[in-house]
């Protein structure tokens, strides 16, 4: 588990640093997507979650879902393009799980990637995670989780 400025960032995940999302590749080739602890810290307590519906095909960088915290609304963007095969329906009744367990029970969407090999190159993983998030947090002027 990597940790940058108090924000946990599991080192077995892929990240789009700019969009602050993580992705975990499952053995069946699908991708579980969620918000990073850094994104959760910036947004504060999440009070609503509205995903696109299962079956929808979303391009890389387009919105998979919107989340609401306080009165801010923002998108959660697809780390790679693909078809939404499942959404975490538990979050409809208790979206605060996203803050409480962003890498576990608080996952948002399961995607079937359209072109994982072609599009995953823009994601960071392993030893690149810490320097990438350090740079992002410095640029943002972020104080820490």
């Amino acid at each position, binding site marked *: 588990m990597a940790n940058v400025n108090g924000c946990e960032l599991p080192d077995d995940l892929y990240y789009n640093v700019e969009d602050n999302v993580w992705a975990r590749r499952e053995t069946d080739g699908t991708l579980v997507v969620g918000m990073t602890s850094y994104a959760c810290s910036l947004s504060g307590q999440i009070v609503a979650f509205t995903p696109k519906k299962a079956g929808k095909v979303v391009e890389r960088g387009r919105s998979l879902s919107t989340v609401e915290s306080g009165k*801010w*609304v923002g998108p959660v963007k697809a780390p790679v393009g693909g078809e939404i095969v499942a959404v975490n329906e538990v979050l409809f009744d208790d979206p605060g799980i996203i803050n409480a367990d962003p890498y576990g029970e608080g996952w948002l969407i399961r995607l079937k990637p359209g072109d994982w090999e072609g599009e995953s190159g823009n994601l960071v993983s392993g030893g690149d995670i810490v320097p990438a998030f350090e740079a992002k947090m410095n640029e943002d002027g972020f104080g820490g989780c």
Partner: protein
Amino acid sequence: MAEPWNVVDTGLLGAAENMAWDRALLEAREAGEIGNTLRFLRFKPCALVGCHQSLEQELDLDYCAAQGIQVQRRITGGGAICFDPGQLGWELFLSRNALGTPDMGEIARRVCEAAAAGIRRLGVDARFRPRNDIEVGGRKISGTGGSFEGRALMYQGTLLLDFEVEQMLRVLRIPAEKLRDKAIASARERVASLKELLGEAPPVEEAKAALTGAFGQAFGVAFASAALPETVVGRYREALKEIDCPEWVNLVQKPVSDAPLLEGVAKFPGGLLRLAAAYDRRTRHLKQVWFAGDFFASPARLVNDLEARLKNITLAEAEVAIRQFLSGYPADALSLSADEVIGVLRRTVGEADGLL
């Protein structure tokens, strides 16, 4: 001095057109097609739900249809509101680093404090009340909210130049009969328009100048007025196609039965307490609570202030909030105890949960 920010006024538009401009300008700011921009807007009669709300749970849709009131979904969160040409909307489209902090709560605070300073220029003592309201003497005069997209954000608010509380409550779902008058009275005491406070509403141009001047002063920028690029107009047309469409308006659908309006009543030595609660059974949150009855409370606004504390919280949180509120409030007199108020609320919500 920094590069001037653009100021545009899109005039009086329908709900879908205004929502489409929101999306188009936010996308355009994210794409770098426009710089930091202040937009003023006004609405033809309409009711807007928050991004994640369902129309059927929040609005009296039959009434809206009969009155020709447009219904739409915002790209920002928060609760349902209604508009007519008597309100002035203001919106800032900024890069996320424009205000020098990534903290969304801090950005909201800075924008709201600047807007409050602008409203003060019109002659009322407007103040920011966390999290998102601007108030005059405890009464809301501007509700606000924000949305972000990549490295851009939009933060918007509404200034009530003139406002019909009764009309708003006809549009929203509120308790029936015995508590309806209370809900109307309560809303009237919680909301204020400039017309009510000043005797007449200031001209729209004067309100725009006051807000523009205050944003300029707070953020150390000058404003200039320039036409929007053609690419942004193109984005607006595309956004309007998506927004002026049932798929967007009905994006979130939840049954009315999941959001009952509960009523409870109990007789105590200190008087009768009647309450109504808008309750979300799925998330187990109290959306709003109203109190009425013949108990004694002084000052009279004690009850309204308590109601304001009991928004969008769980029953357990409400119990803590009631105790904290009543122990800390400078009340002259209240003929009910915290235990009595909590007891009625707990029983009312408990009965509703039992129906699940």
